[in-house]
């Protein structure tokens, strides 16, 4: 009885949280389907705003740009952090504290302050420093550094990376090769989680890209901003499309990862079956 009561409470809390998270999205979706809404109820339902969006030739490039600018800094930042962690793990374990502090600093940086500072510092310099795209990518790298670092560090804490590298070295492997072959595969799930978090953060950014990129690099968020002055329903449709896109990306990554794990499990079970026979 007591157990049933506890389960009911858990389900109620979960249901409330789900409603709280899904409700705004559902309302946005509904609003994007409404025709005219000048009276108490809308005059009817339509997919016209979605059709208009897909018919607009200026709709696709901002989406592509957003996807590029959301993934390139994540890949770059993951690579740089992985290499920095190699130096810390293999050569200077004592630097870990410094690394932790450095990687936590961007948490306290406001996007506006960071973007204005970067612009003020680099815009007067020669290329490639003053290149807006390069500036944007690097600024994003700084912004997502804490998430990337945490994801990698948490995965590293779960294994004895240093000793694994030493074991591989004694088997004839170069330390960097040992790190890439033995340690990095065990960090994949941590990197994936932090990468997804970072991608969604960058996907929704407007402030930094507007200040640094401006007219040089128009993204989906900037397209959305312009649309807000045109039509509320079309803005809602755009929000729904962007949401579905991020959902699709996240689901694909998760499914790929699950598929990988399932394949490994099946392989294992097949092998066990063969051996027990």
């Amino acid at each position: 009885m007591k157990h049933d009561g506890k389960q009911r409470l858990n389900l109620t809390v979960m249901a409330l949280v789900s409603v709280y998270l899904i409700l705004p999205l559902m309302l946005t979706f509904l609003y994007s389907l409404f025709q005219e809404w000048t009276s108490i109820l809308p005059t009817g339902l339509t997919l016209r705003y979605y059709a208009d969006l897909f018919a607009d030739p200026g709709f696709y490039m901002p989406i592509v740009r957003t996807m590029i600018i959301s993934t390139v800094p994540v890949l770059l930042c993951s690579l740089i952090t992985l290499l920095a962690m190699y130096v810390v793990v293999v050569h200077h374990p004592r630097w870990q504290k410094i690394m932790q502090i450095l990687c936590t600093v961007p948490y306290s940086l406001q996007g506006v302050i960071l973007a204005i500072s970067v612009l003020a510092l680099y815009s007067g310099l020669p290329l490639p420093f003053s290149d807006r795209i390069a500036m944007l990518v690097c600024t994003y790298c700084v912004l997502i550094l804490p998430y990337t670092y945490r994801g990698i560090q948490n995965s590293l804490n779960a294994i004895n990376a240093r000793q694994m590298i030493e074991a591989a070295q004694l088997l004839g492997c170069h330390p960097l090769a040992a790190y890439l072959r033995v340690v990095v595969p065990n960090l994949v799930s941590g990197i994936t989680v932090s990468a997804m978090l970072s991608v969604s953060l960058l996907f929704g950014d407007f402030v930094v890209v507007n200040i640094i990129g401006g007219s040089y690099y128009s993204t989906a968020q900037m397209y959305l901003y312009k649309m807000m002055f045109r039509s509320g329903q079309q803005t809602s449709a755009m929000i729904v499309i962007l949401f579905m896109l991020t959902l699709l990306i996240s689901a694909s990554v998760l499914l790929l990862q699950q598929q990988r794990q399932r394949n490994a499990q099946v392989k294992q079970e097949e092998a066990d079956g063969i051996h027990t026979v």
Partner: protein
Amino acid sequence: MAYIQFEHISKRFGNNRVLTDISLTVDEGRLVTLLGPSGCGKSTLLRCLAGLETPDTGRIILDGEDITDKRPAERKVSMVFQQYSLFPNMNVYNNVAFGLRIQKMPRRQQQQRVEEMLAMVELQGKENALPRQLSGGQQQRVALARSLVTRPKVLLLDEPLSAIDAKLRKSLQQRIQQIQRQLNITCMFVTHDQDEAIFLSDIIHLMHQGVIEQSDEPIALYTNPKTSFAASFIGNYNVLNGTAFAQMVGDAMTPHDVAVRPETINLLLDAPENEPDRYVLPGEVKEFSPHGNVIRYTVRVGAQDLHADVLFRSFKLFHPGQRVYVVVEKRNCLRVN
């Protein structure tokens, strides 16, 4: 000529001197143990041989070649770690085959060698298991197979059995000894467990505070410790300073400490006849505690407490407060430095 030579090896970590002018040799095909308490430098010495630490001074010669400045990968030395250090993303087969893949050995040869090794450690049928699916003992056997598959010149074992329960440890000790003899491979074993060292080793190097305290064969080290530390560490000896011992037995003073092994002490209820080759000392039982098949008595003799190990026979128990005679043969009272 010795197969491994450590010549005047010293090593510091900051202000902490870990190894002080260590020189020792190891003959080919022997199983040698570095024994000592935690922090005595035994693992550091092993890591210096592996190339995972660089000695501040001295040199290491392996098979006639100075390897002091060589990278770990170039030394042809393998190591089994305390925490196994298996690669979690690889199954047993790939863990064992890792070293052979690095050597770019043909696939067929690789398979043959891995199968040989897995048969040797009795892990056939576990090729596809991931390390997390194995027990501690199985993981350690995979680590052993992985280290041996590349046919190293020396196998280093850094407290490989300390994370394993007592019963399994015994069987793994036998397995290691069996494999070492079968392959006739030179092994250096690090442990703080004296029983393990005595069981496994051809030679034990007892270490204390960064120096070699005594090097000997296990039985010689056990029965004939040269220092107070060796006596107290390897055999739970009663170690008394010269003055205290002289007062206790009523002999002339000796400048040396005296060590008496607990199992060489006899306890009797009735006074035996005095004989010139033994001491007979009246004492009183203070306490006793069972240790497996022996009972350890603490007996007060004069101003000293002596430990005596007596085979556990329930019909022959001494109780606290009981008056007894402590009988020790003089040849079992060893002078130590």
